[in-house]
């Protein structure tokens, strides 16, 4: 894969839900999505709740399937991936969720939560090596080694989010998808985690898909953004273009509505 080819290329992605649609009167979750993510960039998916951002995130991470369209990852059609390649995909794409309270197994210790990915994808590492890796990851996200033997409920929302990030980074993914990772956090903690993301992007040359309803945050992190409404992409471009000079009325309204 050359750098001119996107890491993620979605064409015509459509997702329909079963007849008993969860979203009121909407059988279509996503309609005709075209999206690219190039190596090293941060792409923002912006929109209101119900716009389909999370569904799209799940499709990119292959947590859910799509009904029509193609998804090329690193030049390969994901539907043609063999068994072993599918597992490798999971170490290439990782996700951090919005809710820090539900995203960690309440009955597992932090060291196991963060190290589980290593056990699966880097099984050549023995227990000691794994423990070392986990320790350095925990420090990288700004937590102390003393937290490794503890359980999630002993930590605050911001700390749990850091643990979730450490877990995702453990397998050294090419792409990190973040689904509204700051929305459930206190204001002062949002700034902390935001800076953590910025640092990781810088230091690890991370490629990221950042989902948010907060345009101001997106402005700070994203290189390019896609604006979503009702399951479609209605506008996209570089962050500066779209957010300073929106072409669509919806986008302009959205920018103006925020405090």
């Amino acid at each position: 894969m050359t750098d001119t080819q996107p890491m993620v290329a979605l064409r015509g992605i459509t997702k329909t839900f079963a007849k008993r649609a969860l979203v009121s009167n909407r059988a279509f979750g996503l309609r005709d999505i075209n999206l690219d993510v190039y190596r090293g960039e941060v792409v923002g998916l912006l929109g209101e709740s119900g716009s389909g951002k999370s569904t799209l995130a799940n499709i990119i991470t292959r947590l859910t399937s799509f009904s029509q369209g193609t998804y090329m990852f690193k030049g390969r059609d994901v539907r043609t991936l063999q068994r072993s390649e599918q597992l490798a995909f999971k170490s290439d794409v990782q996700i951090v969720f919005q809710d820090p309270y539900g995203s960690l197994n309440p009955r597992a210790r932090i060291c196991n939560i963060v190290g589980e990915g290593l056990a699966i994808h880097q099984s050549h590492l023995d227990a000691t090596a794994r423990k070392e890796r986990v320790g350095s990851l925990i420090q990288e996200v700004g937590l102390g080694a003393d937290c490794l033997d503890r359980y999630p409920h002993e930590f605050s929302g911001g700390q749990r989010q850091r643990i979730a990030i450490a877990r995702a980074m453990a397998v050294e993914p090419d792409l990190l998808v973040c689904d509204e990772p700051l929305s459930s956090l206190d204001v002062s903690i949002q700034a902390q985690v935001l800076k953590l993301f910025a640092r990781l992007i810088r230091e690890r040359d991370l490629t990221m898909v950042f989902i948010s309803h907060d345009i101001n945050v997106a402005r700070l992190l994203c290189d390019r953004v896609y604006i979503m409404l009702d399951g479609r992409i209605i506008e996209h471009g570089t962050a500066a273009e779209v957010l300073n000079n929106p072409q669509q009325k919806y986008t302009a309204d959205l920018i103006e509505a925020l405090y």
Partner: protein
Amino acid sequence: MTLLAKDTIGVPPDDILTVKNVAVSLTKGGRTMVSGVSFGVRRGELFGIVGESGSGKTLFTLSLFGLHGETEISAGEITFDDKTLFEDGKRRRLGRILGCRIGFIPQDPYSSLNPSMRVGRQITEAIYLARGTPPNSRQCRDEAVALLAEVGIPEPETAFRQYPDQFSGGMRQRIVIAIALSQDPALLIADEPTTALDAFTQRRIIDLIVERSRRRNLSVILISHNLELLRQSVDHIAVLYSGQLMNIFETADLGRNPLHPYTEALFECIPSVNKTLTDIRSIPGEPAGAGFGLTGCAFADRCAYVQDICRTARLPENTGRADSFSACLLGKGVRT
């Protein structure tokens, strides 16, 4: 309810609500969650209370009027509409204050309406409780429809007959506002009324509250974790942290108002339009839980200016009911 001589607690006559050195404790166990809070809300003004988790902002505000199930006022004086609510360790009878003089808009619009009662009826019931107008009368019905129109519900006559689940979150919140307004309250308490709503709806609901307040000369206490939202919407803001009152300032001319280090730090956290990543300065550490007490400043461990005195001295209280107040022991942000 006794009409207290104003001199006793020095209540300014145009205050709808005055709180002085109020402390709130848990009924079970007596742990003090909020202490030493003093401020005043004028008639017709919008007053914001901001805080992060553990600040005690909701707990405090609800406890003032006995709306919180697990707390009690353990100290201080509360005067509402010239009547004493709490003084000398005793709560005076609240009586009909709650329904009629105070309106309440809770956080979650999805559970604050009775799902099996038509919307119109929920409003007429409120009117009946406030004014005794028979709920089935033409007059009552007309008032309710007018209120629905006032809060921006399209086709209010149809809406009158509908059930809550036929409305979106934003619409439901408007209905809740209509119910609150129907009793013609003197004070409206809005507890994070837009957290569950999307950005557009949030803007519209806040605008609605602000506009109704101005139009009806209605005082509003708006509780939020969103400092920027409050800055753009209300007249004064009180900042709570870990159960302590840190700051009160006017929003009209922010530059003129010296701010508490915590408030300053909060403003620096917020990603707003003109900031770059380096402009954003995060606050180290975690927000402290409620119930810090009055000795030492709860923010000391996270404050850039901290000195020894910050951990040992007793926190100053706004006993003078100033509109501009900073609890900083180092004197930062205090108007000279």
